[in-house]
């Protein structure tokens, strides 16, 4: 037996297909609505009829540039299209129009968290524009495969990463980041279950310290982030075990069986495709000028990474708060509007992550459909800061009323319900004296050194004032009275 076992380190790369949310297809004018009746959103071009000519959708170019800018990529000036030839029933032209040698974006990175929570940059090799295929349905007709071409020609971006991942967690975090990005940019639904984001992974392992990569295996057909992570971790174990038992990894394409949690062989290298790429003569080159890129950049919404930086550095919020607030675009937009109405950022963040978030979760409402406007929340924060109502009253009493009557002013709600805090010294002093009069024995104990009793007196003050006593003033008055 060998004394030391060879350690292996995995090398993983991801290819993501992002379905763009354009209204019409990449090369023709038929609609792209998800879930339409089969073969109703088709055209002579997407059906692959002879003699038809494709015409490219300008929105697809714009979306690609947006993603490229967000990933710090270089944007190519002269873009050409190519035909990728293969025969499949859901690809009626017999070729996919894609970009081969001239991907619109190349280079760049996406920052993610690694398995230990440290920042890591994942390199982007390329992003190119192409089109989706139709759908083959194998389980309706027992004797035939059925073809729905609604999806044929829907624009896609294929995003290829550098082999920078070391485990499944990193891949999971990367996918979350990409989804967040495409949703912020509003270029895709980023929904893996509906297929608007799809992911293939390349996995290989090599003995630690060796420069040369091992033979890679491609895994396809994972329908959730979690399954991508599981497939990677399974594949690493399988390859290491195979090599340790004297075997050799073959260049293969595998499917992921989510039920078994295993990868299964789909095709071996012998069946590999021969795509015979050549220039698409029916589409003229697309020139993306520096001005165009600059213009797209200037009209882009702030990205989650920029917002996190602003919240941590300028607003002095914690990294955790910043991450939660930017989790989705709508949440961030709401917060952005909220902080345009108040300077108490910490309190604004607390409202978002406290009262507002729990209300939304409870009612299963999206923040886009939340009827209370940020300005009203800011007014609540102001009432608390002015000492007119306590935090507790604001969150537990005023807020529910506000949800019920989103058009009323928080101040009005507090007044009508008699929730305005008693900070009037004379009135409060009376209450303080009443509270102390109720517990003469405890007052003696306090004076004898049992300072913890202050809480009891405070509770009584709150009870007598029905929660309206300003705690700061009340504490001050209590200590004064007790030291007499």
């Amino acid at each position, binding site marked *: 037996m060998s004394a030391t076992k060879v350690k292996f380190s995995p090398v993983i790369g991801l290819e993501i297909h992002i379905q763009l949310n*354009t*209204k*019409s297809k990449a090369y023709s*004018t*038929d*609609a792209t609505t998800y879930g339409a*009746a*089969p*073969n*109703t*959103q*088709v*055209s*002579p071009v997407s*059906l692959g009829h002879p003699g038809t000519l494709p*015409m*490219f*959708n*300008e*929105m697809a*170019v714009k979306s690609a540039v947006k993603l490229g800018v967000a990933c710090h990529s270089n944007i190519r000036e002269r873009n*050409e299209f190519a035909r990728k*030839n*293969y*025969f499949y*029933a859901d690809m009626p032209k*017999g070729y996919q129009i894609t970009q081969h040698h001239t991907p619109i974006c190349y280079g760049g990175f996406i920052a993610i968290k690694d398995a230990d929570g440290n920042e890591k940059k994942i390199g982007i090799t390329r992003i190119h524009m192409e089109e989706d295929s139709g759908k*083959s*349905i*194998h389980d*309706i*007709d027992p*004797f*035939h*495969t*059925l*073809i*729905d*071409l609604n999806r044929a020609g829907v624009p896609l971006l294929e995003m290829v990463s550098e082999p920078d991942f070391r485990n499944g967690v990193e891949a999971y975090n990367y996918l979350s980041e990409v989804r967040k990005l495409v949703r912020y940019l509003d270029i895709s639904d980023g929904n893996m279950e509906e297929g608007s984001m799809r992911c293939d992974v390349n996995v290989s392992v090599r003995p630690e310290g060796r420069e040369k990569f091992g033979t890679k295996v491609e895994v396809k057909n994972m329908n959730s982030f979690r399954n991508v992570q599981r497939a990677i971790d399974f594949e690493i174990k399988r390859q290491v075990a195979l090599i340790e038992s004297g075997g050799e990894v073959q260049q293969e394409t595998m499917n992921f069986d989510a039920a078994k949690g295993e990868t299964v062989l789909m095709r071996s290298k012998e069946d590999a495709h*021969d795509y*015979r790429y050549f*220039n698409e*003569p029916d*589409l*003229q*080159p*697309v*020139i993306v000028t520096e001005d165009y890129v600059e213009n797209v950049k200037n009209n882009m919404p702030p990205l989650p990474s920029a917002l996190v930086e602003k919240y941590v550095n300028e607003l002095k919020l914690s990294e955790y708060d910043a991450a939660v607030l930017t989790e989705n675009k709508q949440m961030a937009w709401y917060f952005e509007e909220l902080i345009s109405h108040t300077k108490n950022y910490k309190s604004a963040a607390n409202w978002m992550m406290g009262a507002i978030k729990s209300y939304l979760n409870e009612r299963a409402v999206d923040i886009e459909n939340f009827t209370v406007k940020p300005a009203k929340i800011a007014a609540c924060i102001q009432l608390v800061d002015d000492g007119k109502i306590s935090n507790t009253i604001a969150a537990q009493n005023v807020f529910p009323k506000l949800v019920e009557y989103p058009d009323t002013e928080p101040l009005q709600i507090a007044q009508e319900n008699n929730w305005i805090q008693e900070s009037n010294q004379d009135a409060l002093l009376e209450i303080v004296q009443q509270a102390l009069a109720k517990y003469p024995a405890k007052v003696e104990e306090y004076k004898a050194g049992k300072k913890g009793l202050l809480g009891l007196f405070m509770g009584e003050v709150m009870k007598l004032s029905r929660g309206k006593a300003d705690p700061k003033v009340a504490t001050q008055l209590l200590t004064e009275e007790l030291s007499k």
Partner: protein
Amino acid sequence: MKISKEEVEKLAHLSRLQLDETAVTSMQKDMNKMLSFVEKINELDLEGVEPLAYMSDEVNVLRADEIKQEITHEEALKNAPDKDTDYFRVPKVLR
């Protein structure tokens, strides 16, 4: 450049065409004719000439992202050799 029988068979397979022996032979002959026709170009001195991929110099021939439904569902299926009311029908791909 000559095209081999194996190359014809490979191309036929990639296009999912079934060719019998006679068809392979005649196809090979035809393709060789085509290739030698195109080979004529090799006789020219093309030093410094950029390959011509497009028939015009136009660029950015783009269209706005607007929907125009040009054909109906019935028209889409009309010319298909096999179909049902909703779908195109093809031989079973997965067995």
